[in-house]
């Protein structure tokens, strides 16, 4: 700010925009508090309690149910949010704003759950368990996307890769009579589609959005056709069964944490391993440095002797394999059968998680958990018969994604060369 404008107390355009943004966020916090207080607090008859179950059938140590007075809890949470909103309006959180926003969001969800469970019982641990399960294919898919896009290839074909892999997993597992063989088959097909995407975008420099869309349409058509022709005729080829749950000794007996984290199938463990491995790989190893360099500034990588195209090919194929693992989850980790278009857009949701998670494996996992939470909340709420249509809940995380991508809650920056083919010389 120049001395002149400071003296006159005049705001520059950019400062005014920032002020406005801070104020808007404060108002949003206050609105949330109002909804919580008036809707979730006063919306409940006085004297009702909300009961939260903490045990899942047959696992872990038994804990007593958590019983809280519905009105009081909602009211307290509302006051917390109102306070935060007030501070934001008065002076504005700056660096801590993301953390504060997260606190408000958690308060809002907690108040909502208390309201929804008023006079009834709600199994919290069960919901967390299903959150992680539903987040697994999204997180795996997002990790596949992180790989491709960090190397500079936009992977909008995640959906098609996952769908084809789901189909292949069911077919191969049924034929071999072993689900693990099915997983291997799914990963191989994912890698193959990764190679197709790589050829289209790296060698033939097809527009990557179009190339990916072509793969998606092709995958939907092919799997639908084959499942109609083959699976309806030979149903024994579409009965792979589901990978069994592996309980980790001792840890699985922990209350709450046990059933949520340590009694899962292979896919969940693979995802929980892959996220830290990929993080270390990308940010702490030679391989990761080169992959990121190729995605940020391929010409710079080329001038220090890195084979840009080779790095891209390898990384995209690897990404395809991870997408294959994500796809296998649908048939071998969840349903035990292939249905037409059974991924139902989750490849695109994984893409959203990738962006929400700022092209970082850990961020992608966090975003996948938010989406998984919304999905599982929606299915549980159908049972509690609340007056809010559960479909609205399903929309909420995508609204948040839109806001994030639009840059309202901090900026999300893609790798600089994402989507750009590299031409030597």
């Amino acid at each position, binding site marked *: 700010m120049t001395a002149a404008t400071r003296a006159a107390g005049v705001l520059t355009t950019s400062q005014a925009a920032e002020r406005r943004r801070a104020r808007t966020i404060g108002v949003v916090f206050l609105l949330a508090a109002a909804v919580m207080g008036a809707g979730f607090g006063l919306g409940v008859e006085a004297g009702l309690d909300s009961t939260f179950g903490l045990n899942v059938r047959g696992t872990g140590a038994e804990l007593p149910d958590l019983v809280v007075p519905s009105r009081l809890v909602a009211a307290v949470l509302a006051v917390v949010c109102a306070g935060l909103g007030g501070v934001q309006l008065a002076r504005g959180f700056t660096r801590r704003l993301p953390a504060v926003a997260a606190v408000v969001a958690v308060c809002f969800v907690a108040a909502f759950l208390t309201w929804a469970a008023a006079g009834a019982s709600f199994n919290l641990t069960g919901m967390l368990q299903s959150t992680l399960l539903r987040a697994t294919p999204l997180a795996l898919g997002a990790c596949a996307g992180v790989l491709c896009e960090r190397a500079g290839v936009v992977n909008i074909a995640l959906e098609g890769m996952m769908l084809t892999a789901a189909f292949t997993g069911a077919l191969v597992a049924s034929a071999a009579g072993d689900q693990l063989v099915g997983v291997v088959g799914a990963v191989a097909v994912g890698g193959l589609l990764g190679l197709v995407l790589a050829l289209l975008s790296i060698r033939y420099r097809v527009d990557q959005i179009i190339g990916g869309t072509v793969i998606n349409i092709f995958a939907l058509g092919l799997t639908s056709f084959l499942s109609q022709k083959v699976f309806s005729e030979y149903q024994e080829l579409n009965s792979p069964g589901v990978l069994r749950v592996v309980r980790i000794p001792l840890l699985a007996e922990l209350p709450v944490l046990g059933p949520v984290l340590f009694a899962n199938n292979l896919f969940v463990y693979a995802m929980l391993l892959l996220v830290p491995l990929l993080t270390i790989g990308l940010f*702490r*190893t030679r391989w990761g440095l080169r992959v990121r*360099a190729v995605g940020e500034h391929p010409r*710079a990588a080329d001038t*220090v002797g890195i084979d840009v195209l080779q790095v891209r090919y390898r990384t995209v194929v690897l990404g395809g394999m991870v997408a294959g693992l994500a796809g296998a989850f649908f048939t071998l980790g969840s349903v035990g059968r292939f249905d037409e278009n059974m991924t139902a857009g989750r490849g695109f949701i994984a893409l959203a998680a990738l962006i929400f998670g700022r092209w970082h494996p850990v961020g992608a996992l966090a975003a996948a958990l938010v989406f998984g939470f919304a999905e599982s909340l929606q299915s549980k709420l159908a049972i509690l018969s609340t007056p809010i249509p559960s479909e609205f809940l399903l929309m909420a995380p995508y609204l948040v994604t839109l806001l994030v991508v639009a840059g309202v809650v901090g900026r999300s920056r893609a790798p600089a060369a994402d989507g750009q083919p590299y031409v030597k010389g």
Partner: protein
Amino acid sequence: MRVELRGITKRFPGVVANADVDLEVDGGQVLALLGENGAGKSTLMNVLFGLYEPDGGEILLDGSPVRFASPAASIAAGIGMVHQHFMLVPVFSVLENVMLGVETTTRLGGLDRRAARARLVELSAAYNLQVDPDADVEDLSVGAQQRVEILKALYRQADCLILDEPTAVLTPPEIDDLFRIITTLTESGRSVIFISHKLGEVRRIADRITVLRRGEVVGTTTPAESSEADLAALMVGREVQLVVDKSPARPGQPVLRVEGLRVLDERGVAVVDGVSFEVAAGEIVAVAGVQGNGQTELVEALAGLRAVDAGTVHLDGEDVTGLQPRRLLERGMAHVPEDRQRDGVVGAFPVRDNLVLNTFRRRPFARGLRIDRRAIRDNASRLMADFDIRAASPEVAAATLSGGNQQKVIVAREFGHADRLLIAAQPTRGLDVGSIQYIHRRIVDKRDEGAAVLLVSTELDEVLALADRVIVVFRGHIVGTVPRADATRDHLGLLMAGATA
């Protein structure tokens, strides 16, 4: 290391970029490769660096022939290159950029940052190249980024360093620093190839000078044997007259008045701050400064292409702050943009359409909803003759024209409506001497017709040739306003480096 190129020929579709080029530099020597833009200097060096494979000729290192299929091979042989546009990953740290491609790893397979940092610190101390290993490259000044590039080459044990136009983006003190670094490098026995089109610098630093013109070597000499005039004549193929004939300015009423202007770049940083000045009718005011000190954003804000964050712009007494480019054009402002390929012409459109890009909605080119093709064609024929635009016909795509002719297309279009104010940013960048003289002449004519002219240039020669008054910018501020009579090269150079008047 002794590096020799013998008979190097490199062809691209339709052009011979290098024809039978010989060149040699000994260890401990600085060879300057001098030539105009487009003379084939960068192509030649990309051949040496393994980015291009030559169509003929051979490369010898210390007497033995080598072939480089890729930069990796060339780096391994001890060649290091500092590109004109730095080859650094902006979101990586200095250390990561230096390590990239030659990473040391720990036993577990992770990056061994500690070992790399130790070597980097050692090198930067030995060659006096100060830079913070952990800073992100995007936060560094241009001079610091260049040091990172040199460190990168030294880290790879380069014996021969190629510096491609290294001074284009530096302030005069940074140039002095660079020259000291080059001296340190040659004292350690390394050879340096210094690519430039600036005569003074070449004579200052080089042991030997090889001059390229149109892809061919037209002479090899030493600073002692040739004056700047000799070198210039070699470079362009005839005697050069950089002085423009012009009468003293007769400034009239102020046309452009800028007050307290503040403009932000894409990251939200104020790159123009508190800038105030005036340009009167009938005078040329030049904005001088090293590239990247806010000139680009200043021009874009004045031309209505970038938001004004604070301050006002008046044109003939009317507040035009934040008006759309078309409204400014209607008020008699014309703009020759700095990046002609991006902002000046639509490459795929024919020349005739490029000549009416911002006037096609007016008479006589438009009649109601209809475009008058004949009027547009007539306009094109007339302007192409007037401005000596060399194109096969008005129908050829603008992208097929040479840089100089593209620039003439823009000048022809913009000068047509520069009744009150002409903003010309880097109007002669990358052009041949003939085109430069022609465009300079036209700018002076425009002034004499009574228009106010704001010239933005990073070339001191151009500023001194044209300006009636010089404004020097540094880091987004005006650090001095100098009448032409007091403007000497040294004085402006000091101001450009940030010294206050």
